């Protein structure tokens, strides 16, 4: 997994690329979120369009990231869900947990 970060209107937009799977990407995702929180960014928008594969460990890390950010008084939202990730969140009912956007502008305004 690779992550690239930019700040727009006080929101940290983190684009994730590649695999978020057990042993590859799951712990990296945790670090990326920790780094953002560590530097005081608590409004986080994860751009998922570049995520090629995700498994239950990756899904678990997304949930963990959500909890961590929320506990710090921040918000974690998702942008551009690939169809398969969308399905995985649906069948586990996690789609009710995450705020998901198709459009970056709408997402930014929502924070």
């Amino acid at each position: 997994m690779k992550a690239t970060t930019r700040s727009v209107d006080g929101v940290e937009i983190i684009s994730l690329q590649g695999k978020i799977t057990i042993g590859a990407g799951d712990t990296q995702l945790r670090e990326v979120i920790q780094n953002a929180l560590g530097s005081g960014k608590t409004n986080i928008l994860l751009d998922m369009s570049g995520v090629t594969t995700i498994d239950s460990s990756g899904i678990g890390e997304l949930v963990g990231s959500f909890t961590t950010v929320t506990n710090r008084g921040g918000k974690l939202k998702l942008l551009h869900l690939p169809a398969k990730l969308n399905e995985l969140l649906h069948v586990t009912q996690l789609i009710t947990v995450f705020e998901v956007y198709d459009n970056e502008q709408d997402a930014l305004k929502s924070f």
Partner: protein
Amino acid sequence: MERGDTERIDITISSRFENIELVQVIAEHLCENAGVDEDGSHWIGMAVREAVANAIKHGNKLDVRKKVNATFELQDGVDLTISISDQGEGFDPEKVSDPLNPQNLMKTSGRGIFYMKTFMDQVNYSFNAGGGTSLVMRKNLAKGSGIATTKA
């Protein structure tokens, strides 16, 4: 493949997460060769990924000397049986909690077996007296791919 034919593929890996993908691609290619579309093959590959990940992590506890075996059997070109076994100590499947239970919704784990059941028609565990877990998953490839509407 014609009626009456059985295709059998057998693969053994050591317990490293990097090897999960090797078993997953076998599953995906076998499904694509059997005429399953890309999405359908992907979901079956994902069930295999989850099963192998569990065998490596919970079963063999990442001991690289311990092996995970996967066997793919395709009957008449449509009935796929995937068996995955490890050399671990087993577990009680009845005690696995339901990830859809609201009190489990925010857990960071516990969705692997659920995904297997979602993508496959049948998921059965058995435990060998000498140790080791065997998981058998079945899928009728003709019934249409994608996410099963009724869950096992």
